[in-house]
């Protein structure tokens, strides 16, 4: 009974925690500019993230290691540290984008510029982590995140053609704006397969002391939680395609994205969008700050843990404090939040192979996984998606940078 409750909570929190600034921004832009034709990118990303999350849970259950810990040990400090530092830097950019998302939500609501919110929002995030126990904060944010289901409901209010939806799930290339289309493919996949997601999940499995009896539970949580989460991401594309594209509105700024729920919900629509954006970004910012501090602690063998007081884990709490401060500064500088988000999602896709590929090596190492090593099929799926996305990122990021100015 307790286990079933745990599974349910796991699924619900992964659904509520799925959307973040990256998936909202990339999906809104994709739907407004290209209609339903980018749905397949979310599908591809979701398939890959289901596999990766399932693997990371299984890895921690079977080997007793967290992923970071094991990558350092398997590949040695010298080979480990450079990709690790790159991943942390990208985490920092994404954290800044998430904080920026919360600030933009407040700007939409009050009209006060987002930069002015950087310090209060960063401070609120930091205080929650400093004072509260993390699982309470974590689960609370993810449960509130269920408000993002309003995007799914909006599809039914607006009415979508199932045939067109299905057509969007097949990869295609548009006749014009191909470079921007490819850049969006990369950012969407980057937004869907954020490495912090599976690093965080593996730490959680260790924290909650999952044993081998959880292998099935892990599979169920990963599959259902991530699939439903992916559906919400698709819902954002669909709603933008139905509500914004016919009016000729493209999403270059969040001011434009904020209009997407108004046709479905009238006066409530605006506030639902603002609430979804604020909660989704704040929840993701919580996870990212923790995931980064976990990773650093695991890399250097410091004490880390969800429910340690700052005094009992000074290096751990200093790490997330420094991360939040740095991200707050990036928001304060006033980079355009939409551009920052799209760029950091594309960079996420670019560095994804740096964590995913070594992780795949571990998943095939019987010394860690015993008889629970990966099947060839799951190796192929993850390697193919991650490598192709990485190559696409190398090509499309410079093109987008040239094309946008």
């Amino acid at each position: 009974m307790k286990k079933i409750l745990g599974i349910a909570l796991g699924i619900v929190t992964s659904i509520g925690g799925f959307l973040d600034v990256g998936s909202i921004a990339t999906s809104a832009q994709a739907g407004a500019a290209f209609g339903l034709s980018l749905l397949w990118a979310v599908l591809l990303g979701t398939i890959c993230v289901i596999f990766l999350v399932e693997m990371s849970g299984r890895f921690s259950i079977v080997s007793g290691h967290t992923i970071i810990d094991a990558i350092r040990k398997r590949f040695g400090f010298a080979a480990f540290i450079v990709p690790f530092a790159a991943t942390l830097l990208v985490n920092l950019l994404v954290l800044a984008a998430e904080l920026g998302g919360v600030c933009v939500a407040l700007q939409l609501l009050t009209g006060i510029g987002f930069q002015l919110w950087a310090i209060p929002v960063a401070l609120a995030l930091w205080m929650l982590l400093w004072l509260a126990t993390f699982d309470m904060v974590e689960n609370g944010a993810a449960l509130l995140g269920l408000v993002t289901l309003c995007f799914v409901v909006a599809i039914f209010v607006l009415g979508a053609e199932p045939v067109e939806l299905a057509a969007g799930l097949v990869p295609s290339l548009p006749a014009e704006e191909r470079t921007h289309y490819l850049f969006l493919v990369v950012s969407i996949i980057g937004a869907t397969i954020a490495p912090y997601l599976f690093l965080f999940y593996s730490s959680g499995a260790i924290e909650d002391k999952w044993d081998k009896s959880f292998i099935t539970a892990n599979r169920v949580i990963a599959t259902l939680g991530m699939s439903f989460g992916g559906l919400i991401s698709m819902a954002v594309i669909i709603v933008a395609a139905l509500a914004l594209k016919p009016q000729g509105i493209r999403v270059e700024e969040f001011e434009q994205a904020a209009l997407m729920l108004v046709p479905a919900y009238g006066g409530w629509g605006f506030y639902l969008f603002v609430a979804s954006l604020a909660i989704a970004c704040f929840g993701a910012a919580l996870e990212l700050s923790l995931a980064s501090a976990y990773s650093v602690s695991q890399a250097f063998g410091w004490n880390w843990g969800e429910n340690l007081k700052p005094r009992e884990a000074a290096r751990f709490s200093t790490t997330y404090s420094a991360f939040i401060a740095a991200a707050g500064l990036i928001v304060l500088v006033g980079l355009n939040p939409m551009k920052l988000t799209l760029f950091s999602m594309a960079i996420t896709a670019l560095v994804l192979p740096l964590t995913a590929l070594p992780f795949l090596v571990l998943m095939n190492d019987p010394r860690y996984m015993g008889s629970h090593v990966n099947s060839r099929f799951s190796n192929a799926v993850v390697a193919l998606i991650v490598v192709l996305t990485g190559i696409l990122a190398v090509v499309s990021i410079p093109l987008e940078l040239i094309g946008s100015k």
Partner: protein
Amino acid sequence: MTIDLIRDVLDTQVLDRRKQPLGKVDGIGLELREGAAPRVAYLEIDGVTAWRRLGARYGRWAARIASRWQHEGHPYRFRWSQVLDFGIDIEIDVDAHRSPPLDLERWLSDKFVNRIPGAK
């Protein structure tokens, strides 16, 4: 039992006798002996040692930064005879509480963490 030093020991998590984290095995010292096989003299827990594995220059940078919080007893070394348990982690018979690998932890506690309300 044979143990592959690089594969099984280097970069492994080290815990104290109460299972508190001490750090990673950042380096291994071998003793060369006349007419006999070399043997493990000590295992080292020290961030500077790890950075030195990237190159001497990184080691010097790390040492300069670490000198802010490191007191005596660095690099911290322990012997194989102190190992209590060797599995996923290495457990050794010391008390982390006052040990040199936790200098940074204590330094941050004193300088920063404990001065902020709510840290307890």
